[in-house]
């Protein structure tokens, strides 16, 4: 019963993310959203399970692929659409676009389009939390590809040495743009983290919101007790790397790999719940889109504000 309620809550948010991104796909040909979009369709369960397990005052540092985390952490939909539209009422007044969604009021910190570059930010925030006492934690969200960058090594080492409460959260969709993981990585993430004395866990069932939530609860408890943790969650990117299309016809990956995932995806499998919840969510989205459309475009007055 309790699980059932949680499931509905998670499902609702996951569905909202999917419908939002499907709306983006629908709107895209109109050129109203002139921003490179990195869709998380297929990966929603990760954002939803993770954010539900975190406390409201825990922080998430994210990437260019963060529509899901923005929504799951509680960011406002109208401000998000206005941001994608490049309007004044966008959460960042149109200066951020899709790649830099942020909502610090609900704990979604900056999203960067430079791969791996927010990982040390989460470590730094966690370092502050530790010095101040209390038990807030910070989560660094990143893709599998990000772990190849040197700064990942520096961040793990520092976090382990200083014993800061940071959760390293890897969304493993197996791809960096069009490159498959085995040609990029000689290591397995959890074993690699272990070399730094950092505990970790890989979750294969990244489609399962409850499993993600549970794994994150456990990881977060570990982190809250004062140790970093690496949580790696397998997931699947249905769409192309950037943009709103599919990319199977380029033959760099097979539909099979994604289809296997889709067969387990609750947002597809649980069609009944989708049907039940969709109308209300679509209305929310309609409202947000209307808000964005009504919002004025920024201009000369805004061009040079907030530079320093």
């Amino acid at each position, binding site marked *: 019963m309790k699980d059932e309620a949680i499931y509905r809550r998670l499902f609702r948010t996951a569905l909202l993310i999917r419908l939002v991104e499907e709306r983006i796909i629908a709107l895209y040909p109109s*050129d109203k959203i*002139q*921003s*490179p979009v990195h869709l998380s369709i297929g990966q929603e369960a990760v954002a939803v399970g993770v954010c539900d397990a975190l406390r409201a005052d825990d922080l998430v540092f994210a990437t260019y692929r963060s529509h899901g985390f923005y929504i799951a952490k509680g960011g406002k939909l109208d401000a998000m659409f206005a941001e994608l539209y*490049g*309007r004044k009422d*966008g959460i960042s*007044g*149109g*200066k*951020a*676009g*899709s*790649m*830099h969604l942020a909502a610090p009021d609900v704990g979604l910190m900056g999203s*960067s*389009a*430079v*791969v*791996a570059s927010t990982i040390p930010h989460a470590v730094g925030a966690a370092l502050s939390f530790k010095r101040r006492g209390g038990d807030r934690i910070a989560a660094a969200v990143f893709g599998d*590809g*990000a772990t*190849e*960058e*040197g700064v990942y090594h520096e961040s793990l080492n520092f976090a382990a040495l200083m014993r800061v409460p940071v959760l390293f959260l890897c969304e493993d969709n197996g791809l*960096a*743009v*069009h*490159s498959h993981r085995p*040609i*990029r*990585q000689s290591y397995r993430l959890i074993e690699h983290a272990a070399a730094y004395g950092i505990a970790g866990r890989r979750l294969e069932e990244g489609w399962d919101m409850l499993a993600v939530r549970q794994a994150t609860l456990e990881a977060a408890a570990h982190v809250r007790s004062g140790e970093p943790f690496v949580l790696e969650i397998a997931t699947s990117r249905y769409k192309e790397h*950037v*943009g709103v299309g599919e990319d199977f016809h*380029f*033959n*760099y990956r097979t539909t099979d790999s994604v289809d296997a995932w889709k067969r387990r995806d609750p947002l597809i499998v649980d069609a009944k719940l989708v049907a039940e919840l969709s109308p209300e969510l679509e209305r929310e989205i309609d409202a947000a889109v209307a808000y964005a459309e009504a919002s004025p*475009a*920024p*201009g*000369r007055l*805004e*061009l*040079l504000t907030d*530079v320093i």
Partner: protein
Amino acid sequence: MTMAAAKPLAQSSRVLSYAGALLETMDGALRDHPNAFIMGQGVDDFKGIFGSTTGLAEKYGAKRVFDVPLMEEGMTGVAIGAALVGDYPITTHIRADFSFLAMNQIINMAAKYSYMFGGLMRCPMLIRIVVGRSWGQGAQHSQSPQATFAHYPGLTVVMPSSSQAVLDMYPAIINRHPGPVISIEHRLLYNLDFTISPADKRVPLTSYVAREGSDVTVVATSVMVLEALRAAQYVQDRAGVSAEVIDLNSISHPDWELVAASVRKTRRLVTADTSWLEYGVGGEVCRQLMMRDPGLLRQPPAMLGMAPAPCPTAKSLEDIYYPSQHDTVDAILTQAKGKNHGIDLPVERSMTEGYKRFRGPF
């Protein structure tokens, strides 16, 4: 070669996109230089760095053209190591912004190796970096660091503005240049078609006159050369103003005498660069002119560049963030005829609309 020299007319002009020119030179490098290789994220995928490396992995094999993990600093170091033992590495960054992760290897290592070891070591190599613009790419996918790199002796920095420039410069660099070269390619150029002239009009590894004129000198870089040429045509047609356009082309080793000679003739200057004005290309142009003759200009020059802020993503902001064709024409006319020149300006605001509506791939 003798054949071609004997009948120059046989070599007629053709149309080639910038990406096509890049692909030809990459192909040529691999074909002519057994030790050349290309590495970079996605160089062997179906997008092939926006079409500039497509098919080469298939043609030359995975040992010559290969994908790498996300490791900008490491990759650049690997390239230097290979160069030191006689290879010719070509590396790519699909955004210039990512080259900042390799700054240590570029500035502290590649730029220093020849001098620091008194000529004992050389690292000839080509680093291709692409400047992004438009469609809300924003603050981290839009930077154009030519002034940054050109400040450091040891680096050669070029910004080819046409297919011709690519075809003429890249082989010269790859086959003969002794040191590291950074080529800054502008994403908006990739899909444009250019007419390739016969071989006697070679683009040198320095500046050249892209259009002759007598009233105003426009010193431009990269895609702003195209803007300047369009604007020059416009002011010629509408106002009979004759603008001379100089493509600075090499940022580290420009032909300053050429620039000074032009300004000596026109006494009026517009600079049009792809980056910020502060500590940028325009300042160096001013310095070079002042060092030669502080009385060259009749009036303050006009300078076109990005607004003094990171790049915003909203289209309404992007449109005013970058100098438009409108701004470029106005700058030239103001130089030639004063602020109240009274001539109609072109209406289109954004260069990205002028050529084509850029919407990726990013």
